[in-house]
């Protein structure tokens, strides 16, 4: 016990020192003292760049208002953790703190690995085979050649030459090598905790600053790399994956483009060149193999109450740090670096245009879904075990507050539906799907909820003809016809004259193939009278769930050829979707806002069919209440891009995996 406490103390000190020392003046003798910052003192920090450490600056300015701490990723190694520049923008002083990718990887990696070391070890013994991390770090370094345009924008010392004096690339290689050695030694022996502790992936997000790779993607794919064998390579899922590979290569031939992945950094490719496609195909394959290994090796230690606790604690901590970060710019900056956020947290506690508060997370929807699962697990726990703790109530309330601030109506409505279903199916989940009456009941419940929501929501129109073509109109408005506004087309739209829009000169080039398909379907003579056409159904659905604008962008953009439509562009490849068809100017990164559409982009229609087959084939083997959480997530994924965030992706896979297992403790 004494040794254990000593070890914990040592680990805490390690984390503390790793966070503090690089941002302090510990390693250099600064001749310049930090001063309290007023707007008139900008000159001082401008002429003394790389002289004052963040900690020194913080000691003078922790409570100073009108300061915004920003990350300067272009810093030299020498200026790491120091004030690297100051600027006045909009009456606020933007203070740039230097960081460097060569150091970030090691520092952040060690912080996260030290945190993992607090978990108990399983039976797997650490195996330190020198060549494994050596080969894999070379593979990860390969990404710097494959996604050069991304890394040129992340480091001013970026150099892609394969020479012995290219210290940038050599340091990147050694940084990953150090991390992977530690993964072998510390993380792999603790994989038995995976299923109980994965909720912390939402708190410690793990995206390396200035790199397009996530720490967990690194760990899981490395696990895949060291465990992949002939059996795994020859199983039906692997063979299906390999079947898609030639099509992905073929579909990526064309002009090389750069996709600014912004908040998706770490889990989405930025380039569509051959090297990048090869890199992501291998990486994602190993990632799947790794997750499979982790799931199979942690199921025996799975405990429902631990999962519930970790969901609640992680969800509540996210809210707490979100609030702290919004109140203080230093905490906001440290949140970004220590937790590995994809995107810096929100700086205010106010919602964006009255809509959402994403707080700590990069996506309000993803975090609301996560907290929704925390709420459901707690409800299941209370009513299955008949146990109710004050601590849980407090944490539950904080999680509910998080959902409220994220303002995700889909999560709120689906939470009510799923909770209701839980009580209906209390006698056992199999009873729920036993008769067709129950399934009919479920469908009518969802339709009724949709109907109620539409009628209660003043933002949704009641005009059927408007609703049935609204999506179509919006997608045409997002086309190049409206760059600038086009009176002729506007007139046609006003009269719902889609036939003449099709007759316009070069309309087949200006409108995407998806828009064309929807128009054809909408004006088709084959539509059955008094029944809505597929276009109308999609359009009405998009209006009800407030997705018309986002889906219209998708339809205006998505213009695949036959091969692309059936097989997609490859894992995590957005480029060809984003740049293959010209539209009106986008107001920033616009994602499809449906995970189904994301899967369509990556794996095409065949990918969606295979996934559906896989899910529905397994539906018969669902054995516990995790089925309800799976339904909850599927409902929400229809209107969110959550699968593009690694933590959400892992949550979906894990919940689905758990729903197929015989978990006696849950049915108790």
């Amino acid at each position, binding site marked *: 016990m004494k040794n254990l406490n000593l070890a914990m103390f040592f680990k805490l000190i390690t984390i503390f020192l790793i966070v503090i020392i690089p941002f302090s003046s510990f390693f250099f003798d600064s001749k310049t003292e930090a001063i309290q910052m007023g707007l008139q003192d900008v000159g001082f920090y*401008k*002429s003394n*760049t*790389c002289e004052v450490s963040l900690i020194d600056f913080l000691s003078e300015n922790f409570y100073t208002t009108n300061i915004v701490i*920003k990350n*300067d990723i*272009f*810093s*030299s*190694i*020498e*200026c790491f953790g120091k004030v*690297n*520049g*100051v*600027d*006045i*923008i909009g009456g606020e002083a*933007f203070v*740039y703190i230097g960081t460097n990718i*060569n*150091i970030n990887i*090691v520092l952040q990696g060690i912080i996260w690995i030290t945190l993992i070391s607090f978990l108990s070890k399983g039976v797997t013994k650490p195996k*330190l085979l*020198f060549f494994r991390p050596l080969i894999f770090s070379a593979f990860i370094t390969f990404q710097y050649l494959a996604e050069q345009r991304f890394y040129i*924008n992340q480091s*001013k*010392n970026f150099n892609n030459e394969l020479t012995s*004096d290219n*210290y*940038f690339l*050599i*340091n990147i290689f*050694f*940084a990953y*090598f*150090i991390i992977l*050695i530690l993964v072998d*030694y510390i993380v792999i022996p603790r994989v038995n905790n995976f299923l109980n502790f994965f909720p912390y992936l939402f708190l410690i997000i793990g995206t390396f600053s200035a790199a397009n790779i996530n720490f967990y993607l690194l760990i899981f794919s490395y696990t895949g790399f060291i465990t992949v064998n002939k059996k795994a390579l020859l199983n039906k899922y692997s063979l299906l994956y390999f079947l898609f590979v030639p099509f992905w290569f073929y579909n990526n031939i064309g002009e090389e483009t750069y996709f600014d992945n912004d908040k998706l950094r770490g889990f989405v490719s930025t380039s569509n060149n051959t090297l990048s496609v090869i890199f992501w195909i291998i990486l994602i394959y190993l990632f799947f193999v790794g997750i499979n290994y982790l799931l199979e090796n942690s199921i025996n230690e799975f405990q429902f109450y631990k999962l519930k606790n970790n969901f609640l604690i992680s969800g509540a901590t996210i809210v707490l740090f979100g609030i702290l970060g919004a109140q203080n710019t230093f905490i906001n900056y440290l949140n970004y670096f220590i937790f590995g956020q994809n995107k810096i947290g929100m700086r205010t506690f106010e919602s964006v245009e009255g809509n959402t508060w994403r707080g700590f997370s990069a996506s309000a929807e993803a975090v609301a879904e996560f907290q929704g699962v925390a709420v459901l697990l707690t409800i299941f726990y209370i009513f299955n075990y008949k146990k109710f703790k004050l601590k849980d109530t407090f944490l539950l309330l904080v999680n509910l507050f998080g959902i409220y601030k994220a303002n995700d109506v889909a999560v709120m409505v689906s939470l009510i539906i799923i909770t209701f279903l839980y009580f209906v199916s209390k006698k056992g989940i199999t009873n729920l799907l036993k008769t067709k009456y129950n399934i009919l009941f479920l469908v009518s419940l969802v339709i009724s909820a949709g109907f109620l929501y539409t009628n209660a929501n003043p933002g949704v129109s009641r005009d059927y003809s408007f609703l049935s073509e609204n999506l179509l109109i919006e997608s045409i408005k997002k086309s190049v016809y409206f760059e600038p506004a086009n009176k002729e087309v506007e007139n046609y739209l006003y009269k719902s004259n889609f036939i003449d829009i099709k007759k316009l000169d070069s309309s087949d080039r200006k409108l995407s193939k998806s828009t064309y398909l929807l128009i054809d379907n909408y004006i088709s003579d084959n539509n059955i009278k008094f029944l809505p056409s597929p276009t109308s159904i999609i359009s009405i659905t998009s209006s009800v769930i407030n997705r018309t604008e986002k889906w219209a962008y998708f339809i205006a953009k998505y213009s695949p050829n036959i091969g692309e439509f059936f097989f997609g562009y490859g894992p995590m490849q957005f480029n060809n979707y984003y740049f293959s068809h010209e539209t009106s100017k986008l107001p920033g990164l616009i994602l499809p806002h449906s995970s189904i559409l994301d899967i369509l982009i990556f794996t095409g229609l065949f990918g969606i069919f295979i996934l559906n087959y896989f899910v529905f084939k397994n539906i018969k083997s669902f054995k516990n209440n995790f089925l309800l959480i799976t339904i909850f997530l599927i409902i929400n994924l229809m209107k969110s891009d959550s699968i593009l965030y690694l933590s959400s992706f892992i949550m979906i896979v894990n919940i689905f995996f758990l729903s197929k297992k015989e978990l006696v403790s849950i049915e108790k």
Partner: protein
Amino acid sequence: MEENLLIIEEICGLKPTETELIIIKNDPNFVFTPNPNFGVKVLYDADENIINVTSWLECANYVNGGWSDIIPGTIIWEKNLMIIYIVTISAFLLFRKFKKTSSKL
């Protein structure tokens, strides 16, 4: 300035389409407008003087005047970091070897 465009773009990034390539000479009244999307870039001259530039045009003008984003001595820091990494890895591997050997004894 046009003849230096390649070097300028290498240091300052691609020229924004809406920005005109103009030389701002020693005009003390001229103020470069900061561009929040550009962020901040640190440039150095031969005497190791430092300047922060906050727009592409400002950056282009300084680079045109002989400033660069390379600090004299940068390579040494990167080389030093490499040595630190190699020493750390070697020390760890030696420690493992020593631990393994001592547990066998």
